[in-house]
């Protein structure tokens, strides 16, 4: 393939046909530019829609203690079941591989809260670090609770935006590091969150679960538990998996709390996935949709590049006839056209790729929109796309080039 004479011949041809070279290059690079941008936008749309429908993660499972409904082992019905931290640790250690996010949730209503001369009454939650993901909330300022806070039983608190509005006139950054009083205990504010769920959630305060348990309940009442399990592509599989998880957890809890195995009232269990089939199917639909877009854009790119190749070869028919009359062999004609077209498409293809990726890199993160989030294309995906276009272009060029190389010179040279 490497033949210096041929390279020289090709560079001369390219250099002496600047218009054709620039036009070909431009159409190839703009085609690839558009393709990459489209792929990026599709990816952004995918993220956007995913976020839209993610309001509540559909695999969420919820466990809480209630009152027993049946007599068992000499214990009376209507006994209050309190889930404790040992139950929680048992579940998280035995189902480590299935659990995606986990938290225990200890609630305290009517928490008297004040900062300097301002005060209000809110709900105080003791939670684990995963709680933010589980509730689909996001940080506005500072940081969320950490494992370290949990271990140290730190007196730190994360505030909802409504509380910051009440106590700090809505200035999030001002709130960080301040010490506020909740039910006569002082806490340091470490972060501010906002919840997609609605206004009410923004009047919540979050402190480490261990801190709450220590302060408010010496019988080790851990509150309710929430988990999500690792997602599955297939809805039915995901449902089966989450049901199995729920049943095993309930069976374990019944055993450790002396509950009749057929008592359905004692443990409250809620599986969000049961109502989540539509969202699940929608996600699958979206995935197929965006794959479709990707493949169609790629196909149109291939058609575009192929078209250019066919036009170029057609335009050069007479030149090919001259070269053949002067002794060019068919295969040298094919090689010349392919060599040249691959060189141009590769060069301009990567220029288009580079420009598009740069644009996405600069503009992408600035796009704040409910439907498109950070449009981006993975570099490897982009390179493979460009290579596919080049190969397709070469194939598309090969067919007319071969045809041209077979044209009899007298026909190519005939004066029209």
């Amino acid at each position, binding site marked *: 393939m490497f033949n210096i004479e041929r390279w*020289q011949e090709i560079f*001369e041809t390219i250099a002496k046909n600047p218009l054709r070279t620039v036009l070909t290059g431009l159409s190839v690079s703009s085609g690839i530019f558009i393709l990459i941008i489209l792929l990026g936008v599709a990816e952004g749309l995918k993220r956007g829609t995913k976020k839209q429908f993610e309001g509540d993660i559909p695999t969420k499972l919820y466990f809480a203690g209630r009152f027993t409904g049946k007599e068992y082992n000499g214990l009376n019905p209507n006994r209050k079941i309190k889930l404790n931290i040992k139950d929680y640790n048992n579940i998280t250690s035995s189902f480590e591989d299935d659990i995606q996010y986990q938290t225990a949730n200890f609630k305290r209503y009517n928490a008297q809260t004040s900062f300097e001369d301002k005060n209000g009454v809110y709900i105080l939650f003791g939670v684990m670090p995963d709680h933010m993901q589980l509730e689909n909330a996001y940080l506005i300022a500072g940081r969320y609770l950490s494992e370290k806070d949990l271990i140290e039983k730190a007196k730190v608190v994360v505030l909802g935006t409504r509380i910051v509005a009440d106590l700090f006139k809505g200035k999030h950054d001002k709130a960080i590091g301040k010490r506020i009083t909740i039910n006569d205990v002082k806490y340091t504010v470490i972060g501010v969150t906002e919840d997609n769920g609605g206004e009410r959630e923004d009047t919540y305060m979050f402190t480490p679960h261990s801190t709450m348990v220590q302060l408010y309940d010496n019988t080790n009442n851990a509150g309710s538990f929430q988990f999500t399990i690792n997602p599955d592509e297939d809805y039915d599989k995901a449902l089966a998996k989450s049901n199995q998880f729920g049943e095993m957890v309930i069976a374990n809890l019944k055993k450790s709390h002396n509950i009749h195995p057929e008592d359905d009232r004692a443990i409250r269990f809620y599986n969000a996935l049961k109502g989540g089939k539509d969202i699940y199917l929608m996600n699958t639909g979206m995935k197929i949709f965006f794959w479709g877009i990707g493949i169609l854009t790629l196909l149109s790119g291939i058609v575009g590049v192929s078209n250019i190749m066919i036009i170029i070869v057609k335009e050069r028919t007479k030149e090919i006839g001259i070269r053949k009359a*002067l002794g060019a*062999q068919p295969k040298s004609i094919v090689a010349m056209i392919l060599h040249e077209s691959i060189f141009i498409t590769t060069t301009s293809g990567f220029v288009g790729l580079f420009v598009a990726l740069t644009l996405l890199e600069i503009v992408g993160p600035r796009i704040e929109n409910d439907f498109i989030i950070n449009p981006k294309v993975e570099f490897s995906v982009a390179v493979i796309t460009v290579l596919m276009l080049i190969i397709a272009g070469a194939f598309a060029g090969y067919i007319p080039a071969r045809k041209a190389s077979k044209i009899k010179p007298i026909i190519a040279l005939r004066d029209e």
Partner: protein
Amino acid sequence: MIKIQDLHKSYQMGENSLHVLKGINFEVKEGELVSIMGSSGSGKSTLLNILGILDEADQGTYTLDGTLIRNLNEKVAAQYRNKFLGFIFQSFNLINYKSALDNVSLPLYYQGVNRKERFERSMYYLEKVGLAKWSGHLPNELSGGQKQRVAIARALASDPKVLLADEPTGALDTKTSYEVMELIQKINDEGKTILIVTHEPDIAEMTKRIVNLKDGVIIDDTRIEPKKASLYV
């Protein structure tokens, strides 16, 4: 140098077949300067294309420099064209984005001659046709006569056995035509075998032999004393 016997050629056009060459017998010795004349449609270009291995006869034999030309595949045909033949066309057929020098060196490129030698040899032929000063010019910067001289230099560059020219003066005015003929005579004087298709009697009179075609057969074949083109320039 060239020997054809009982050459036939028909063109198929749908249902009809057009019998263009109907048994041509014809021989050209080395160093001859032959003109082929005849009315339009008499088959002059067809004959020349067959001689140039750009087309193939249906019947008959064609021997070029002792080699029988028959059923050649594309590859061998290209080799023979490159080695044995030089073409001069009515419409020049220069590659318009290549300079005069690059056009002339193209046959050498296909012979695998390296770049340096290619340019040296091409320059030699450009000098021979009086266009050394124009070597860097593109075809559209040259006059018709100059273009045809570049084409002649290109035909000579691969040092072929035979030059074939189809109406080389067809697109030129009288004065320029004579200049081109002067050059062709000079090349012939140096020993090159040349065949010219023309329908201009004054051009034919500048060759050493006139072959007249009519309705696909040779009706007349006369050797003459050529008029010196240089006297008319």
